[in-house]
């Protein structure tokens, strides 16, 4: 089981981390990754510069609502399949 941590600190919240959490949850469910991935929220990941911060496998990525699907396909999928 791997965690996808989405920052919900002030800056990330204002950049719609709420939508990203919900979209990632949808993607995990629709791809049947429920036993492999867990979407979690995290308080400030320390890189407000790159909001919204998403941490996966100890790397912090910058994800926006419009790039969530692409991030999931390119970064997450290859590491769980």
């Amino acid at each position, binding site marked *: 089981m791997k965690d996808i941590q989405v920052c919900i600190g002030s800056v990330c919240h204002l950049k719609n981390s*709420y939508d990203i959490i919900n979209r990632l949850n949808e993607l995990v469910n629709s791809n049947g990754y429920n036993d492999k991935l867990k979407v979690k929220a995290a308080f400030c990941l320390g890189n*407000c510069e790159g909001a919204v911060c998403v941490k996966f496998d100890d790397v912090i990525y910058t994800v926006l609502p419009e790039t969530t699907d692409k991030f999931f396909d390119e970064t997450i999928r290859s590491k769980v399949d």
Partner: protein
Amino acid sequence: MYFIDAASKSINKAGEELCGDHVEYINLVDSKILVLSDGLGSGVKANILATLTSKIAATMLKEGATIEETVDTIVHTLPICRERHLAYSTFTIIRVFNDGRAYIAEFDSPSVFVVKNGERVELKKVKKTINNKQIYESSFTLDKDSLLVAVSDGVIHAGVGHSLALGWQWKNICKFLQEIDKNAESKQVVDAVLDKCREYYENEAGDDATAIAVKIRKQETINLFTGPPKDPDKDYEIIKKILQAEGKVVVCGGTSSSIVARTLGVEMEVDLSTMTVDIPPVGIIKGIELVTEGVITIGKALDIMKDFMSVSMHRKAEKNMQEKNAAAMLATLLIERCDNLNLWVGQAVNPVHQRGNYPMDFQFKMNQIKELASVVENMGKKVNIIYI
């Protein structure tokens, strides 16, 4: 010194939009004054009479007027009802000091209830005639096991014409109060009384019904830590100091909570079920009363607290406080479970917040804390700001 835990609630007569009972609260440094007034009739007219009476009484007593002067002013101010040729409104004045002393003045209202450890306490009342009106005064001392309740006659008569031929009646209400859990807060007592009223009235109240409950308890302190300290080298030292301070600890801020978790050597979990579109979810750190994001959550909590203090928005605030989100929890904690608030305000500046496109820069945060301090002070609580 005690905290005076006072609560009140009303239900309106069926079909009426306005309540003919009114409760006025005044918070003073050494005491709280509550005035319950029941205006003649129902609807608009009763509402105006009750509001005027309780506001005049509360304001005059606050300014140090005697009970004689207060009653005299009320009698000469109330407008006269055209149908009944009367200007009339009952009242119960309760003043409780934070050392537990209580003063009560009653005019034509149902006698107050005092219950201690499940037993009824009888009050010695002194009759005073002011402007041909009989006022009953009593003085006694509340302790942490005592409960003081005042109701309007709509509670005494609950059920008349519905489930109970003679209504609920004073002695039965007293029994009901004697059986209430002695650890219940005032708000729970008031809710229990009015729920029972609704049940007896079968949700068709025949009269406005109001209950006030007052208890005293030991004062509670909250240490609210928000914003990382200016000097990161001192994080550990300062957090230790906050954690060792008397009272509960609340942390508001993403970085701030990470620092606390690190100092305690624990992992922080986030409770996603509390996440809403507007408000980031709460975090969970063992030993910390509440963990939230900073500036957005405090802003939303401030909105609730300001509504809570406003007459027209109070109900909306009460509803919002029931919700399961970080701002509602923070507001509820500060409103209901805080007498002394220590604000530990970090002075570190997040460079990303200072860019032009981010609306909540350092200055915004500092102003928000000042506003929080003043709102909490207006609720009659003590606030202490410590810049770190």
